[in-house]
């Protein structure tokens, strides 16, 4: 079926004006919201970000400074710390948040009754507004022996732990809450992928006399490889931009042990001195964007090749 062409003017090599007129004035009217909203709140700011990263800017005047912003950002002693902390967050998030949803989803997929209850329970934390989850957990992490987690752990003879107040434990505490808040989404993704494993593969494996365990290892898991890689990349992209948890739990402390890249950008832009380091903040965010774009490209290529095979 070829798409019919509705009143489209015949192809004429034309001026930009005739180009705009193609599709008639009503097409322009319909394009207006996209053009205006994206123009003012997306395309313009993107262009402005590129310009600002080469400028010294405050709220009133700006002047060109070449690459100084980038140099200043890269020379900032806090940057390696922020990168290290963010990487540490990402690594911990992988350790906590990667295997558990997988095991849970594989097990859940064989549940025969009330499957919906399982997925609803797993997904419930995702529904809790992130800010509220963080505030609630901040109370759970109360460092006194009467704190919720300390009291629970004391029943098995552990603790009390300082949680957010210790440089060692602050980051794992953040990651634990972040995992609680996000793991349900991953479980649902895996469940969808598990449902797509062709039944014939299992039938064939059974003809060959495969046990349940062997079916999981040789049929189920290989089939999940693609999805596992996608969630891995998504998780790296997500954790590279972690902000809410360090901002609301610890504010980056204690002693900058939870200072992440986004928090550093935020501090430069909106910290004590509003607007003083807008240029540096933008430069750093562009550097981060390049990294994320590379990850995105990888993701893009992978999902694309999988959706055509």
């Amino acid at each position, binding site marked *: 079926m070829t798409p*019919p062409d*509705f*009143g*489209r003017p015949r192809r004429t090599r034309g001026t930009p004006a005739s180009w*705009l007129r193609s*599709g008639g004035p*009503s*097409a322009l009217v*319909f*394009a207006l919201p*996209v053009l205006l909203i994206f123009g003012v709140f*997306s*395309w*313009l*700011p*993107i262009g*402005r*970000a590129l310009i600002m990263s080469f400028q010294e800017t405050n709220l009133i005047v700006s002047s060109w400074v070449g690459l100084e912003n980038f140099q200043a950002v890269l020379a900032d002693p806090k940057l390696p710390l922020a990168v290290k902390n963010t990487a540490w967050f990402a690594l911990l998030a992988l350790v906590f948040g990667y295997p558990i949803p997988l095991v*849970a989803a594989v*097990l859940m997929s*064989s549940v025969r009754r009330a499957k919906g209850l399982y997925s*609803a*329970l797993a997904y*419930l*934390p995702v*529904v*809790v*507004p*992130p800010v*509220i989850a963080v505030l609630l957990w901040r*109370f759970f992490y109360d460092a006194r022996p*009467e704190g*919720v987690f300390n009291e629970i752990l004391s029943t098995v003879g552990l603790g009390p732990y300082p949680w957010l107040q210790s440089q060692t434990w602050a980051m794992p505490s953040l990651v634990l809450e*972040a995992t*609680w*808040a996000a793991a*349900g*989404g991953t479980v*649902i*993704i895996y*469940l*969808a992928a598990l*449902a*797509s494993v062709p*039944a014939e593969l*299992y039938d064939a494996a059974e003809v060959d006399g495969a046990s349940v365990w062997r079916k999981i290892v040789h049929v189920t898991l290989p089939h999940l490889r693609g999805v596992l890689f996608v969630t891995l990349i*998504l998780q790296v992209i*997500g954790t590279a*931009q972690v*902000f*809410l948890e360090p901002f*609301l739990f610890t504010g980056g402390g204690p002693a900058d042990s939870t200072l992440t890249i*986004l928090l550093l*950008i935020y501090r430069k*832009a909106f910290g004590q001195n509003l607007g003083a380091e807008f240029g540096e903040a933008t430069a750093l965010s562009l550097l981060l964007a390049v990294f*994320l*774009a590379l990850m*995105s*490209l990888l993701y893009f290529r992978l*999902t694309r090749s999988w959706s055509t095979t």
Partner: protein
Amino acid sequence: MTTTTPTPVTGASAGAPVLPSDGPRRATTTRSQRILRARTERGSTDEERGYVSTGDWRRPHLRRSLSTAHLVLLVLLVVWGIGPLLLLAKFAVTPTQDILRTPLSVFPHGMAWENLDAAWNEIGISRYFLNTVWVAVGSWASQVLVATTGGFVLSVLRPRYAPVLHWAVLATLFVPAIVLLVPLYLTILHPPVGGSLLNTFWAVWLPAGASAFNVVLVQRFFDSLPREVFEAARVDGANDFHLFWWIVLPMSKPILGVVSVFAVVASWKDFLWPFLVLRDPDLQPLSVRLPTLFGTTDLGAMMAALAISTLIPILMFLIFQRMFLRGAGLGGAVKG
């Protein structure tokens, strides 16, 4: 820039391409669409099967160990999914001193229903609650307006500049929200038309509309609508506006539902952007106001406030459960 607060794992903010796009024309399906379709086609009949066959289920030993594993999983999931929320619900009606001294005992000194009253009236949750609803409604409206009109131009009207527009919209998917933080803030501070949008709801509503994910989602849905219907409408003398309002929109209820749920949830969750542009406490939504109050307000009332704020999203989830879980499944394969 809807989500300025990225979460790990789902990482639903910009920074990742949202759709594995092929040009606007090619009607290939994405992985998740196929998965979803396969699921619905197979339904819950005996055709759907996993790694455990009916024969396996008949073996008593295997049956017992699997059932045990499922039971253990269920218990863990209850602790994981409901545990913290139950605690929150308990704290909401517990006297402050009990919350602090014996957080795990069940009402040692009775309940404190007055917490709820204090939260609603003294802390003023009612006001921030209304702000939250207002922010969500406006963000929803602006997203639906931009996505449907944009999708209509790109998919149905297809003027000659459509491909350029398509790529210009798609390209913004690659730009993470954080890059826009400062320049967008300056745009809000000094919009091109003059004045300032700071401390107005427009500062949240308008940027929310610039969601390429929505536009592409709607455009792809419009692509799948039968062209014959449009043609017939044209023959009957429908102009572009009739076509949009009477034909395309009524046929698009499913996708409008998805976009709406995404829009409302994202707006309810958003923190950083409203935090930056709504400095006036009288305008702040719950997620912006609560962190400021936490620690300076009576803990019992605060817990009641947190519980009330959690209630609506949870109710929404229970009502639209199918759509949420579908969206999450979609999130993995389609949404960045």
